[in-house]
């Protein structure tokens, strides 16, 4: 199922947080959004998982205007991992994961055996089955994040949007998660901060700066020394991954730089 953002615009108090963003994620494709803090990545994503109504433009999922679909129908097609940190009350991991089924249920309808088995499988995949009956509030950040991802998987969407899913995850679970996303066959739009993970995971990358899409394309085409300097205001060296051939971005701390013409660290950053 395709995901289209057509001229997506979010204006708050006269400022364009997202400015005419056009982006297409074709069925089964993994597209990453990168950009500095405050560049509008999360804002754009919030319009997709319907936490924020766009001021202009359209979000289309499988052809239909998402914001005109009933909330539940939308949630059956599209699952999200938001930046909200889980529950306020001590639900168990199993209970949180089971809530992923709620768009497919009316009212208080109980889960079927098949759906429970599905919850167990998702917890297995994310390596949290042993935590099934633990309270969510006593888990570590990474365990909690994996619980929320399991919930999104149980939702059985066609499209998944994730806002910094690798937050709090250790390196093994970061790789496992992104690997899982790649192989899931889902249409994925994901905000990532780690450019190397983005390069390794995404079919295409979109770069946002000041709410505008400044570059989009294959990681090797997008991630250049010049773009990283312009958008992030840092100097980077790009090398080729010895095995996969993906671009790898290497940073150097200013103090450790050997050449004398190092640029000022804040050059090019935007407020």
């Amino acid at each position: 199922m395709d995901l289209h953002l057509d001229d997506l615009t979010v204006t708050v108090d006269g400022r364009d947080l997202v400015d005419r963003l056009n982006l297409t994620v074709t069925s089964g494709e993994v597209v990453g959004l990168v950009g500095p803090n405050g560049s509008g990545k999360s804002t754009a994503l919030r319009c997709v998982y319907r936490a924020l109504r766009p001021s202009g433009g359209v979000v289309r999922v499988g052809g239909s205007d998402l914001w005109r679909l009933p909330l539940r129908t939308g949630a059956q097609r599209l699952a999200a991992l938001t930046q909200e940190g889980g529950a306020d009350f001590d639900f168990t991991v199993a209970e949180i994961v089971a809530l992923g089924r709620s768009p497919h249920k009316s009212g208080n309808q109980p889960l079927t055996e098949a759906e429970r088995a599905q919850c167990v499988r998702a917890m297995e995949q994310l390596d949290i089955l042993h935590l099934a009956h633990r309270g969510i509030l006593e888990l570590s950040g990474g365990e909690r994040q994996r619980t929320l991802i399991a919930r999104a998987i149980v939702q059985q969407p066609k499209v998944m949007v994730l806002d910094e899913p690798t937050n709090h995850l250790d390196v093994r679970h970061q790789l496992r998660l992104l690997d899982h996303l790649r192989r899931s066959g889902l249409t994925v739009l994901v905000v990532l901060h780690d450019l190397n993970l983005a390069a390794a995971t995404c079919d295409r990358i979109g770069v946002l700066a000041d709410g505008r899409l400044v570059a989009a394309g294959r990681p090797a085409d997008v991630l250049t020394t010049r773009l990283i300097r312009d958008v992030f205001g840092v100097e980077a060296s790009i090398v080729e991954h010895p095995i996969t051939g993906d671009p790898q971005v290497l940073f150097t701390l200013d103090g450790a730089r050997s050449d004398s013409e190092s640029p000022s660290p804040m050059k090019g950053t935007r407020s």
Partner: protein
Amino acid sequence: MRSPPSAIENDNDYHYAIWPRLPLKSVMRTVRTTATAATAIRTAITARAIRFSGLVESGDSATGTIATAPSASPVGKPPPSPRSLDGRSGTVVLVTVLTVVLVGSVFVAIGLGSAVVPPADTARYLWAALTEGVIVPDEVTRYQIIWQIRTPRVLLAVIVGAGLSAVGAAIQALVRNSLADPYILGVSSGASVGAVTVSLFGVLSALGIYAVSVGAFIGALIATALVYLIAHGRGGVSPLRLVLTGVALSFGFQALMSVMIYFTPTNEATGTVLFWTMGSFGAATWGTLPVAAGFVVVGILVLQRHSRALDVMSLGDETAASLGVDAVSARRRLFVVTAVMTGAMVAVSGTIGFVGLVIPHITRMVIGATHARLLLIAPFFGAILMVWVDLLARTIVAPRELQLGVLTALIGVPVFVYLMRRNGYVFGGR
């Protein structure tokens, strides 16, 4: 023919001879039975939970236990009780046990008081009342104490205890705040202002003896509506704004009430205010009981129908949207329900603190946070607690009555502390 019952209700010889032994024993018995039953139920739920996921609790308890409260006792700390995705069989047993305990408590509470009526007689009077049976003239006074005074009073305690617990649980989820209680939206102070207005200025006098209650009800609703409208901002109502506005306006209403009383210092006004701020079931009659019961029972059913929505809303508004629940509109609808329920309860019993705040937490500690079970079990806990608290309040220093809030706190706080330390209960957020 109806003689004033106070003559017997205040009969302290009777009272002091019987009181210290009889009810304490039944209290202890009830507590023991409940504790045993709770253990059995937890075992049942655990067994089912393990069967469900097809695994035995593994030893990975090293991670993630940092946040649990340290145990009070150095030895024999029981492991945190695991809860299941679906403990329906356990829930059925629990509901059955609680129903029995509740009915038993009601029966005991009707029989006890300043004038103790033996259980056989209590049963006979209740039976006579329900079947329009015959009472010998000698027993008319005792019959009236049982049927006209104590029965509505105890039933009102059941209704209000159940209602406050359900509303408290729902409100805590709606505003995503563990400190919220049914009065958070200014309901109680609004009700007091309404009641005082009615008794001072004589508005609504066409309603006769119900005028003050209706005034309190209307005051409660106006207060809630005001809080909601003021808190309303761009993109709906944020939970925190709502709580803050509720707290701020409560102070405003209290000030308004003080001013009204200051300028018209009649005994009646002071009495009215005292009743509404301290809370009592003393005004219970068969006339008002069905109305309050209707509001509360229908309200609890409506809240229960929204259990899964409440679960989803406790995950946050954005997550709720991604799971197909419109948190803003659901919150608005459920607030109307809780406001009407609380308004109806305040109108007949005044403000009874603590129950609506703590019973939801106590219930979560025992059966977990899922609202389908929480909204089913919490009303039982609240009703049972309220019946015993009211019984103590009217007997312990008879003929005077203790403030209900004092006793709910005296009983509830130790239970709460015990459960919290034993289970390592974690409140919203860390």
